[in-house]
């Protein structure tokens, strides 16, 4: 069939002829994808620049300089195209995690990362519209191939970023926990565990593990657990405290608990703890003095010269 007009219908007919009619509809997506990938590679420069421009226009990645944005945009673009081409996402996932590790400390937020990936998707889609606008059927085919892949890529990058953030938050929480329950050696064989703030069952458990390790490492015979800084404690946590005392005994250490607030004293009595097992003293000073006695120390003032 000769082509007389340059119009959409004729182009479609020609394509149908070329690819065997309805075979066009089942043309493997891979063929279309490689056409797409070539287009993206050929127009790499202007598409990247367009994207970087849009990022700045949308006031995203304000924590980074223009040069940094362009450099990252290049990496993201190339990874994006490669993921489209190969259909595998491991490299992209690895890149997303690596990128997140670098930009999160710079204060880049989730909405910015999601935003820039969506902008790239838009920029690439627009370029496809521009290229195939004369052939609506083909445009649709190309989009059929492009959209699922592009969406999956956007998803991979965004999820990678969020997972990295969550990992960092968990690490920070762990660090805060470690900081807030130090086990301190103040004399040979004497440890102090000053607890401040809220104790939940998880923190209580972590406290116990730290203390038992500390007893073993420092060969402590007496431990003073000071809870002056703890306002309240529920029955579960009070039980954890009792268990900590018992477990410490199994390691040959005596525990003295100091600084119980009136509320906590009430909780402990209410849950029916055998107080014979709990060695308690009013305040930290008293606790240390008793510990020293147990260890056989006596603290004397240095005699005045006069």
């Amino acid at each position: 069939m000769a082509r007389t007009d340059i119009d959409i219908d004729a182009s479609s007919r020609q394509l149908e002829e070329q690819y065997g009619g309805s075979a066009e509809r089942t043309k493997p997506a891979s063929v279309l994808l490689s056409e797409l990938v070539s287009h993206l590679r050929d127009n790499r420069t202007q598409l990247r620049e367009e994207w970087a421009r849009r990022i700045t226009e949308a006031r995203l990645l304000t924590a980074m300089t223009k040069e940094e944005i362009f450099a990252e945009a290049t990496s993201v673009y190339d990874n994006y195209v490669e993921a489209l081409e190969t259909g595998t996402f491991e490299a992209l996932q690895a890149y997303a995690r690596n990128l997140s590790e670098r930009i999160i400390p710079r204060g880049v937020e989730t909405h910015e990362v999601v935003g820039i990936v969506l902008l790239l998707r838009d920029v690439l889609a627009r370029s496809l519209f521009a290229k195939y606008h004369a052939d609506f059927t083909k445009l649709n085919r190309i989009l059929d191939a492009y959209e699922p892949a592009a969406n999956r890529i956007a998803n991979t990058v965004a999820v990678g970023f969020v997972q990295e953030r969550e990992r960092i938050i968990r690490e920070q929480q762990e660090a805060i926990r470690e900081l807030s329950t130090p086990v301190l050696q103040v004399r040979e064989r004497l440890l102090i565990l000053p607890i401040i703030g809220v104790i939940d069952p998880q923190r209580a458990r972590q406290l116990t593990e730290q203390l038992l390790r500390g007893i073993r490492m420092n060969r402590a015979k007496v431990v003073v657990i000071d809870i002056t800084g703890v306002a309240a404690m529920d029955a579960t946590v009070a039980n954890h405290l009792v268990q900590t005392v018992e477990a410490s005994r199994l390691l040959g250490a005596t525990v003295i608990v100091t600084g119980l607030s009136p509320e906590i004293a009430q909780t402990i009595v209410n849950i029916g703890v055998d107080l014979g097992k709990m060695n308690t003293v009013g305040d930290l000073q008293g606790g240390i003095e008793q510990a020293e006695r147990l260890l056989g120390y006596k603290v004397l003032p240095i005699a005045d010269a006069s």
Partner: protein
Amino acid sequence: MEVPILKQGDFLIATIQAALADADLLHLRSALLQQVVRCRSRGVIVDVTSLDVMDSFASRTLREIAQMIRLRGAETVIVGIQPEVAFAMVQLGLKLEQVATALDLEEGLAHLKRKSESPA
């Protein structure tokens, strides 16, 4: 498995090197008692440093060992309970009540010496 029992002066030291089956624990109980009688020991140390777990049978048997040996006028100290084991034990309510415990062999011997010097 036979638990080696060593004599150190007035004291006996039994070192448990791996998880013991119930029958082995009972064998240890009678072996220790016989040795205490034969050597006229004043104290016994049971070293459980190598144990990763302590179940209720082991815990009860250790208590029984301490009680029986006390009837012979001698003191028992369990040493070397690992932090993780201690934690698990208290959670399960295995308390080893009225049984002396110490961090390690050195502390256990020091405890026994103190006790035998001041019998009260």
